[in-house]
């Protein structure tokens, strides 16, 4: 498998990260595994003592688990859309980050559905979803959508990896034999011949074309689990595009944070450049504006209509005694902050953009909580049992422990994957990119004047 000089340089630069695991990574791995084990203990409690150990009750039947599910699955859809667009538009600046987007896609689609399984009370009847599916139910649509998307995401990542796997195979990397065998098997004899290239390009293009609409459809289906029910705050015609945009937005944030971390840890400043951060910042700003518009539209319509249940929900969301501060945080940190940071030239810098993205991601998680829980606390029928834990949802420590375990799994998978494949795709880097980077390299930060 041949590489040009720039690609070779990129590979040589990343080679040590594939060959050495390092003490620091071992430490992190054990740290994440410890959290996962703690989560397994919480899961044991939940199975042994039932869902009573969680804060979920008759009225508020969904809590942290479904919030995490939407959050992670949204990241996955966002990763697929970003990777698909970057591939189809063949943007040279997108090449170094496409691998991270694909890693986010596959890892999130593995972690996200685990949280749905945690919500299931009767594991023994899980197969009924497939034996007795009800095609009219959004739940059935979602199960089919997630499974279909999962297969697509695996294929998408794998096809994008084939060229690089061939590079790793031929490079004679130091490491265990099984790893060499895996590179050899997974690269399926790719040598970069014209005919092989043609087959690969057909596959990649087809998959990129299908993954973008598929991601939009599955994100919409996810939103319809809520939107199809006659509940205040959920029954909305814009919920589909709202979720698609929300997923893309938070996915962009996570991608920026991942880019920043790997740029630092793998010394990838020559590949994941400040310019890429600025462009990603612009994308984040546009998405923030769109998401803000949707959010305002949702709240304003519900408030103006003054319908009884909608008014009750809006009151909950904006009352300082209830969810008011969280709503303020979700909208300030989730919408206003990223726009401000990117809009002001002085803060339109890599570190600032990353910090805004990180805070925005947390705010978007809170926003998901605000979509789920306050609505469930606004019951349409008078409640028979008005004990506090039935009226108000409060997450219990097993739920937090399992949430932490999910997050640990997410980080662990990222860590392990970045030790198996290069974070910046080697074979994907183009000569134009090479020139561009080398031309831009001598230019110092100080020489770039704000627009």
């Amino acid at each position, binding site marked *: 498998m041949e*590489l040009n000089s720039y690609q070779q340089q990129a590979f040589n630069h990343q080679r040590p990260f594939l060959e050495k695991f390092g003490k620091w990574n071992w430490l*992190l791995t054990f740290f994440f595994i410890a959290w996962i084990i703690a989560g397994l203990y919480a899961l044991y409690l939940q199975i042994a003592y039932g869902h009573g150990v969680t804060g979920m009750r008759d009225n508020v039947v969904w809590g942290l688990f479904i919030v995490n599910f939407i959050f992670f699955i949204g990241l996955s859809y966002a990763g697929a859309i970003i990777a698909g667009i970057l591939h189809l538009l063949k943007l040279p600046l997108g090449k170094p980050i496409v691998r991270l987007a694909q890693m986010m896609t596959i890892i999130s689609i593995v972690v996200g559905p685990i949280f749905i399984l945690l919500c299931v009370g009767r594991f023994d009847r899980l197969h009924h979803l497939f034996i007795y599916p009800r095609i009219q139910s959004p739940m059935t649509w979602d199960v089919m959508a997630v499974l279909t998307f999962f297969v697509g995401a695996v294929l998408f990542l794998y096809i994008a990896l084939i060229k690089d796997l061939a*590079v790793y195979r031929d490079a004679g990397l130091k490491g265990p034999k099984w790893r060499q065998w895996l590179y050899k098997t997974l690269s399926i004899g790719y040598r970069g011949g014209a005919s092989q290239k043609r087959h690969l390009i057909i596959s990649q293009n087809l998959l990129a074309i299908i993954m973008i609409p598929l991601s939009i459809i599955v994100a919409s289906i996810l939103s319809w689990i809520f939107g199809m029910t006659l509940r205040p705050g959920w029954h909305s015609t814009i919920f589909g595009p709202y979720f698609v945009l929300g997923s893309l937005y938070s996915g962009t944030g996570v991608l920026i944070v991942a880019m920043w*971390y790997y740029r630092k840890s793998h010394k990838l400043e020559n590949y994941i450049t400040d310019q890429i951060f600025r462009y990603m910042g612009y994308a984040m700003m546009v998405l923030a504006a769109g998401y803000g518009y949707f959010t305002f539209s949702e709240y304003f319509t519900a408030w103006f209509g003054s319908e009884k249940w909608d008014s009750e929900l809006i009151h909950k969301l904006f009352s300082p005694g209830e969810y008011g501060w969280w709503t303020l945080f979700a909208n300030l940190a989730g919408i206003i902050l990223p726009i401000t940071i990117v809009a002001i030239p002085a803060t339109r810098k890599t570190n600032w953009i990353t910090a805004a993205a990180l805070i925005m991601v947390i705010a978007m998680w809170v926003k998901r909580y605000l979509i789920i829980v306050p609505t469930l606390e606004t019951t349409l029928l008078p409640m028979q049992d008005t004990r506090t834990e039935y009226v108000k949802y409060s997450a*219990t*420590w097993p739920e937090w422990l399992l949430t932490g375990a999910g997050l640990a799994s997410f980080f662990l998978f990222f860590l392990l994957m970045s030790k198996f494949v290069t974070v910046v795709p080697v074979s994907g880097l183009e000569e134009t990119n090479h020139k561009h980077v080398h031309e831009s390299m001598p230019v110092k930060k100080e020489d770039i004047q704000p627009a």
Partner: protein
Amino acid sequence: MKRPLLLITGLLYCLFFSIALAGQTDSTAQQEATEVTADEPALISPTLDLVTVQKSDNTIDLKASLKAKIKGTLTFLHSLKIKFYLVTDSAENELGTAITDRNGNAVLNVKAEQVVTNKVGQLYFKAIAAGNKSMEGAEGEVTIKRAILTLTPVKEDSLLSVQVKLVDVGSGTETPVPEITLGIFVKRLFNPLKVGEGATDENGEATIEIPNSLPGDAKGNITLIARLEENDTYGNLEASAIEKWGVPVSDKPEEQPRALWSSHPPLWMLITFAILMVAVWGHYIVIVYELFRLRKEQPVLPGNATNS
């Protein structure tokens, strides 16, 4: 270089850990609160209600209902033995026993030849639930006069009605009972449905119209029931008859239309779903096929360029 991840994850986990600890404290407090209120009363004090239903076949149903208030909640006591007695002027004769069901009810059917009226022409029944180590004993009693309620269906053209007659037989002779309100019911899946009522005249008779559009079984049969309920003198009386006066309703499930609510989804939904799945999975199949073709291709370039 690796500090940033440590910082981010450290901060996040500190946040989770503190919230988790707070949650644990709340949960423990709730558990303690539950334990404090978990005291149970030493001995249950049940109540036993006894009612009678005189039926048109000259038998009497003795219905005992056993319940108690446990931790402030009314609870039906099941699987307990109830003994039934007939108390005459000279003796207390045991009629039989029955076990309470899940609703706390026990029923004993008594034949006409088993009962003897006392000197004032009344029947005096008693039911007893024996106590045990966790429950006190309970007793219920009821006194009734013998009476017979008859029901005769009458059909004139399209007009449907029932003639009911109530006679007192406590004194040995049949004496009509006037000015008593009787209800007419139709048997349904759960409780009988009341369809009319009327008061008896000086002959102890009443004619009550009933609707002609009642759903029946597959053959159109409906079960008509005449009832005198909770009368101070006679207790409960019941008579019934089956007539082909209902609208036949098939007990076989009808084929449901294609709809959002039925088990058959709308056709457009099925077609859309199928098109989407075929389109996506079709692409997957083509892609996997392309990968197989790629694998079969002979290598055209030597793989030697990347070793460094």
